[in-house]
């Protein structure tokens, strides 16, 4: 990891954004283990550099589609930790009024077109958003986050094919964390780098260190430049690792212990902190203050969520159809 070319403010900002995600996720995991959160929680601990490096290279008016492991993507794009936490609790103050939960957080005003519970489903949606930008003559790009698992779905191939054929302003960012639930990517895919698949669609494909926030930032900035310039999509494979299970409570029997240890030593948040200290871009005290501030933010988010009411029973039938619709739950 090199910070060369990045100034002090940028490096510290990236660190702050990554640490916010880490603290949010560790808190969510803790709350889940205490049975305060229901359903499933898929944390992105270990993958923070991808979300932050990517979203920092986008403009506020750009769009993203996220995955079922999407908390980091939403926070990095500007998501409000209080509304996100409230959604995890199923409260009415949550982003989706408690109807979507962890896997479906969206904030259209921030360009977050939604996390998605179906692997690969966000890829064509992102391409459709990019198509809309092109049709409306707008200078926006849409970035699709997806995992190595989604790279084997039909939607990946169909979507890349159309986006490249039509030069759509879309960025395909694969977070290769090596596992689709329990199945290691090497057991189900012959190509060693998933970015090689870009060749089949006549677009650039790059494999980068997904734990290096600067490398992610540079790759996405270049892809965004191409997209805005009418040169079409780019496939970026960010090689990373999820430190925790597919879901909270997953015993991870499918991962070698040495592998987990090896990747923990390459922790992107700790690594960036070390780098900032080594290069004298900020001192212990400053980074400690940032951490305290973020811990407070997350604690406040939890308090906000816990103090918020559950949705009114009348909400159960609202929003099946759009607000301006007269039918509600149609017969």
């Amino acid at each position: 990891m090199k910070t060369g070319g990045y100034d002090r403010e940028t490096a510290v900002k990236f660190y702050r954004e990554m640490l916010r995600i880490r603290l949010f996720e560790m808190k969510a995991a803790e709350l889940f283990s205490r049975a305060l959160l229901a359903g499933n929680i898929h944390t992105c601990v270990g993958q923070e550099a991808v979300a932050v490096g990517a979203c920092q290279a986008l403009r506020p008016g750009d769009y993203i589609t996220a995955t079922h492991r999407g908390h980091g993507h939403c926070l990095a794009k500007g998501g409000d930790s209080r509304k996100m936490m409230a959604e995890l609790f199923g409260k009415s103050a949550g982003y989706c009024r408690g109807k979507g939960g962890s896997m479906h957080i969206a904030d259209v005003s921030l360009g977050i077109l939604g996390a998605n519970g179906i692997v690969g489903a966000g890829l064509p949606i992102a391409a459709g958003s990019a198509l809309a930008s092109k049709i409306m003559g707008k200078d926006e790009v849409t970035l699709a986050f997806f995992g190595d698992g989604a790279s084997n779905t039909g939607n990946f191939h169909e979507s890349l094919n159309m986006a490249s054929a039509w030069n759509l302003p879309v960025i395909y960012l694969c977070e290769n964390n090596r596992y689709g639930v329990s199945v290691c990517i090497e057991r189900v895919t012959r190509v060693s780098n998933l970015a090689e698949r870009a060749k089949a669609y006549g677009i650039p494909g790059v494999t980068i260190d997904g734990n290096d926030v600067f490398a992610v930032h540079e790759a996405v900035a270049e892809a965004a430049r191409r997209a805005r310039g009418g040169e079409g999509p780019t496939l970026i494979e960010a090689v990373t690792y999820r430190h925790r299970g597919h879901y909270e409570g997953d015993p991870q029997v499918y991962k070698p212990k040495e592998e987990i240890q090896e990747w923990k030593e390459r922790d992107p948040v700790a690594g960036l902190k070390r780098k900032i200290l080594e290069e004298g871009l900020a001192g212990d005290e400053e980074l400690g203050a940032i951490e305290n501030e973020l811990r407070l933010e997350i604690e406040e988010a939890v308090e906000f969520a816990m103090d918020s009411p559950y949705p009114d029973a009348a909400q159960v039938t609202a929003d099946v159809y759009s607000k301006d619709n007269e039918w509600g739950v149609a017969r």
Partner: protein
Amino acid sequence: MRTITYGQAISEALREEMLRDRSVLIMGEDMGVLGSVFGLTKGFLEEFGPLRVIDTPISESSFTGMAVGAAMRGLRPVVEIMYVDFTPVCMDAIVNQAAKMCYMTGGQISVPLVIRAPGGAGRRNAGQHSQSLEALFTHIPGLKVIAPATPYDAKGLLKSAIRDPDPVVCIEHKLLYATRGEVPEEEHLVPLGKAEIKRKGRDVTVICYSRQVLFALEAAEELSAEGIEAEIVDLRTLVPLDWAAIESSVKKTHRVVVVQEAVKRGGYAAEIAAQVMENAFDYLDAPVKRVAGLNVIPPFSPGLEDLIYPHKQDIMQGVREVLR
């Protein structure tokens, strides 16, 4: 009033809405250069350009997903899935994405998407090009479903569907495209969720939709000669269902036959029959009768294919049974 075909009516609806609203676009296989396999969009590419008349690759799953994404961004895509039989290829985009986006985001996002999916048997196209799959869509909360039977309804309903803020699946029977009917020259809309009494009668209510409306009307004419006056209720929209229209007819006739081309088991006629039983049982003088397709895969051989879905005689037989 002038007379045009059902296919022309669909074509006019698409063209008028594209002229009226720049956010309307059409996409699907062979929609552009060819003008669609049923010839409904001839000249559209020249008139509206390739950004609004999009010839997609054969990628139903992903181009339907793209239409969902474009709709989430405020455009109004009209997607054609060449045959309704191909919709299972893109069911995720319809069922898990388009239908649920509004609810799962707490009302933040609406998906003003229309999916046109020609359906129905009778063209000797065999098992994968001849089905009636509307029940799949009526089962999914968040979708609306229309199935017009006449050129008048096809044009008016499709225009309403394009203006609707929610995803609408439009089932067009392939054998209706060449049928003719009166359609006004001037702007005309048929609201979603309104059935129409296509023929008044006092003895029995025949509830139907799509091509079976034509068979039901023929059956009613012959029954009339026998002294039986059937009331033909054309649902036009399957979801949301116009229960009021059904109820008032049932209260008048006390006998109900529900007709569908689709296979009988798990079909939409079963839903109608169940609602009549639940909510209007006291008005019934006989059990509700379903006249529906056989529970088989559409065969190719002409002699066999014609046996699988109801014809005039089957509807007449159904009516006689509830009047016995």
